[in-house]
């Protein structure tokens, strides 16, 4: 077991390295560098004004030199200064943004899990009744809607028209921090984020539970006279949950991606928004650091999921 973990961690580190090289190259291939992002095309300024800045940032060095310099500094924990934000150190900036993203994602995930598993169980148990059909239709609708449109309509409908929720941001500016304030800002984006995810979880839960319910041991339990409720909860659901857990783990990466639309529409100060802004402004230090951290977290989550799965199901051989 330990050998497996160590090997996976080592491979994970190599992949992180490969990831940083890949992103570095892609960024340099993109037309326009951070200094180009500074120049407002409408303002009468000249490029030579910024030439000194370019040299100071080391952007005129050959690519391998730039990359190795970045790597050396990163290994010491120094991720440099943000170009776009006039010298804010990058690492605290990025770490500041991880919290809100994790908060949003986990809230969305929690809602999705609760709603998805609950409706999945309900739908499987009441198979082919009206409940099942309408829940399934709803789940199809959830999966078929484009994320950004739902976000836009949700913002417009619930915030502007109905005024049930604030129109964006994480906290009300200027007010002292309160959990209630945070929750009121969180509820709408988290719910919208969870729509597609809960629909997917529901469908998988339903399919998995249906598969389990047709197994012999369930028939045996029923034949033994166990109450239907306990048949479902104690025997069926526990076994049906396993593949659904893997699914949840493997779709966290997708959830990060979906969060970007939500963060963009709601101006939620998370990593997604940070990345979009940084790429638009070609803020290389921020992009590199954020990519490294995101990549590390995704790899970590995958590793944890695999370990949990292997530990829980004794039939899985860790090859």
């Amino acid at each position: 077991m330990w050998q497996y973990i160590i090997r996976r961690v080592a491979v994970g580190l190599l992949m992180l390295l490969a990831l940083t090289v890949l992103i570095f190259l892609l960024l340099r291939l993109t037309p326009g560098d951070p200094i180009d992002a500074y120049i407002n095309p409408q303002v009468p300024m000249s490029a030579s004004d910024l030439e000194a800045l370019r040299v100071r940032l080391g952007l005129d060095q050959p690519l391998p030199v730039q990359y190795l310099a970045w790597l050396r500094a990163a290994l010491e924990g120094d991720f440099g200064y943000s170009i776009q934000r006039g010298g804010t150190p990058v690492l605290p900036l990025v770490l500041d943004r991880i919290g809100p993203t994790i908060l949003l994602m986990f809230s969305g995930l929690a809602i999705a899990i609760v709603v998805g598993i609950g409706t999945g169980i309900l739908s499987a148990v009441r198979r082919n009744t009206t409940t099942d059909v309408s829940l399934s239709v709803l789940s199809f609708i959830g999966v078929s809607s484009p994320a950004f449109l739902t976000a836009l309509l949700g913002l417009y409908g619930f915030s502007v028209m109905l005024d049930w929720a604030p129109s964006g941001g994480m906290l009300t500016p200027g007010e002292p921090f309160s959990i209630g304030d945070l929750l009121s800002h969180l509820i709408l984006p988290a719910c919208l984020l969870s729509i597609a995810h809960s629909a997917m979880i529901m469908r998988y839960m339903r399919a998995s539970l249906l598969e389990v319910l047709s197994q012999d041991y369930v028939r045996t339990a029923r034949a033994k006279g166990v109450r239907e409720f306990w048949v479902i909860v104690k025997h069926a659901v526990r076994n049906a949950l396993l593949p659904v857990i893997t699914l949840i783990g493997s779709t966290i990466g997708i959830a990060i991606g979906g969060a970007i639309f939500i963060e963009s529409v709601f101006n939620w100060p998370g990593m997604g928004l940070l990345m979009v802004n940084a790429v638009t402004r070609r803020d290389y230090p921020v992009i590199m650091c954020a990519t490294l951290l995101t990549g590390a977290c995704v790899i970590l989550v995958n590793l944890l999921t695999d370990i949990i799965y292997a530990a829980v199901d004794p039939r899985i051989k860790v090859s």
Partner: protein
Amino acid sequence: MQRRCFGRLIMAGIVLAASALTIVPAMAQANKTITGGFDVGPGGFPGNFHPLQATAGFTWLSTYYEPLVIYNQDLSEIVGALSSDVSVSEDSLRYTFKLVDAKWHDGEDFTSADVKFSLEFAKNPASGSLFAARLADIASVETPDEKTAIVTLAKPNPAFLAILTQIMMLPEHLLGAKDPAELANSDWWSTEPVGTGPFKFVRYVSDQYVELAAFDDYRNGRPKVDRLINRYFANAAAAVAALKAGEIQFTYVEPDDAKTFEGNNDFRVIEGDSYVINYIGFNHKVDLWKDLRVRQAVMHAIDRKQIIESLYGGAAKLASCGYVAPQIVPEGLNDYAYDPEKAKALLAEAGWDQIGGGQTIPWLTYYNSPQVGNVMAAIQAMLAQVGINVSPRAVDVPTYNGIVQSSDFDQFPLVYAGAQNGPNPASLNVNLNPAQIPPAGNNIMRIDMPELTEAIEKAMAETDTAKANALWQKVCSVMNEQLPWGSMWVASRYGVTSAKLKDFFWTPAPAGGPYQAYPEKWDIAP
């Protein structure tokens, strides 16, 4: 690496929660606050706090910093801010500034030592200042006494005062001892800056908002409101949603969104000149546009009046040259009326079929708004009618700059762009002068027309206003005749304020100004 990431994550979570819980509670609930999207739109520069690295966002910066001189409210003249009087010597080389009595936010007095420090700091490229090249003409700054500063230039520069309007005064007693290069990357600017303006800095919550509090000892009296908050928005639409929901009281809005506020008595729509001339840029290094008749045909093929009416709702001024200000536009210009038949004839004469007839010409722009998308679609259809096939390509600003500053002319034979043409008409020089071809300047279309260059340089050198206007008129007529660009129009820009705001002034100045907005007078009804 993962463990450190994990540990840092947990730390980050704890730090986030702890700092959130220990945020100093704001002042008593009954204080007056104005919240707005001051950095929304083209005049803003969200997230930037270093006044010498700012290319825009001066409206907000001028609520807590002040320059020596500033534009007045309609941007027609330069008046004093931290200097009460400016006198220029006969040879236009010495500027004498008499300074007002003012205090810094930390209580120290504002003196000429601060002026000397600020100007030398701005001139020093090591500080990361973007004004270093423009201030290179400064030979010396003398401070005969605490309330007088004398700046001597190496050669006359009629635009000197205009440049000074964007240079904020900085405290010598706090920054003078520090290394300029360190200050370029310092977080002083975004955590504890000190200025002389009517509001003083309280806090910045990363990518969310900036909070300022009223400065009691402001030289013109304590501001009427207690707090000023600048909220950042990912895009103008989000700001509009917040405005409609009553969470903010002011923001810049796109022209299309401004229409939705018409007739609504809870809001006031502010319309102003953008001072940006939108033009179709011909790349002078590409053979397609070498013949003047082809450029004329392009102008005749486009129904500018119809576009202004339908797509801008009438809120744009037709431009026959680079300017629309009445005192600089002479009589008798060719208005290039909409005449597709004439365009076709001109193209036939010039032999367009051989030059560019069959090609699809890439048409580059950095504008990404739906309105400009519609405008370009309309123009594309109009040009296709006469046989010119263009294909619009909208990219983001860094990509655009990366392309047009390079020598890959085939990627940008045609552009749609905007250029600042005021309040000082000399602003167009960087776009039209062959001495300003990249990397020296912003003449991205590689324009090299001797007659135009001569006219511009003569007009820039003239210091008397009346004579200068006549010379700028000559520049205008040369532009109209020789078509270095296809000048289109100057559009209006809009802001919307809540009806609760009183004595609030805003105008869509390029880069946000700065201009005299009198933030100390802004008030809000309960």
